[in-house]
């Protein structure tokens, strides 16, 4: 004998509700949260190091990696408070990990929180961490086909940040193509061409982030 239960029940990915709670928490404290997603070696940490001196005292960073606290130390050396999450095996951060991090990592007194996701242009695109915006980080050395190849990462991103622009004379990378492919997914997507090495684009990027923060507040 068998019985069928008719349900028609919608479910969200686990963590969806928690992400909403985190978003409320960040908002109540007046903190604007940016979730950085990009491949390993795309320059996420280096970009944050370049931003760090400009937001000292008002920003903090949560770092996500499978192992080590290398990135946390780099951020601290750049002058920001940082917390390292080690996901062990997981290829992305999720809301539970962020909530657990906040049990020991204080976010009092800041108005800007960067969450650097595990290096991966695929999975982090699917997970909400309570952030206000995601930004996609792609370096000129990875190849200009990445925005086309990773459409979901572009679709969930509020901006495309191209890093290592100082290397443009040495690599074949068509920024227009990256821009076009990113805007296939999100029309008018802002694109920032940056270099942590010579500082180009970093001020523009930060100004845009702070403008987004003001617009939300």
């Amino acid at each position, binding site marked *: *004998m*068998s*019985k*069928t*239960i*008719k*349900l*028609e*029940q*919608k*479910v*969200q*990915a*686990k*963590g969806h509700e928690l992400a909403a709670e985190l978003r409320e928490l960040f908002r109540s404290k007046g903190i604007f949260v940016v979730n950085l997603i990009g491949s390993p070696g795309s320059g996420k940490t280096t970009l944050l190091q370049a931003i760090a001196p400009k937001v000292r005292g008002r920003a903090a960073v949560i770092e996500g990696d499978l192992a080590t606290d290398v990135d946390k130390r780099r951020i601290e050396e750049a002058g920001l408070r940082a917390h390292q999450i080690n996901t062990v095996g997981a*290829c992305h951060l*999720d809301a539970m990990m962020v909530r657990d991090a906040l049990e020991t990592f204080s976010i009092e007194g800041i108005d800007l929180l960067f969450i650097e996701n595990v290096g991966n242009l695929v*999975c982090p695109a*699917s*997970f909400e961490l309570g952030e206000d915006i995601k930004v996609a980080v792609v370096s000129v050395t990875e190849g200009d086909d990445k925005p086309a190849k990773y459409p*979901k990462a572009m679709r969930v991103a509020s901006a495309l940040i191209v890093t290592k622009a100082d290397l443009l004379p040495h690599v074949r990378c068509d920024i227009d193509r990256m821009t076009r492919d990113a805007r296939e997914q999100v029309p008018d997507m802002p694109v920032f061409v940056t270099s942590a090495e010579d500082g180009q684009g970093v001020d523009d990027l930060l100004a845009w982030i702070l403008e987004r923060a003001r617009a939300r507040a």
Partner: protein
Amino acid sequence: MHEMSFAEEVLDVVLREASAYPDARIGRVRVRVGALLAIEPASLRFSLEAISLDTPAEGAELEIIEEPLDGGAGDGALTIEEIELSE
């Protein structure tokens, strides 16, 4: 791989619903997935299979209906349609 996160929620709901019938096992679960979720059926199936071991849902068949994009609310939703129990 966000399929695991969906599989966890599906399993929670299925086990909760089935708990009213303590002697039953779960034979089949039917879900509809919206196109915007970009769920890979094989991955969702594998995830559910892996986490349902040693539960009444172990070995249950997962039927996945992939819905085409239609601009509606269903595009971004995973809906559990029905659960079939067997003795």
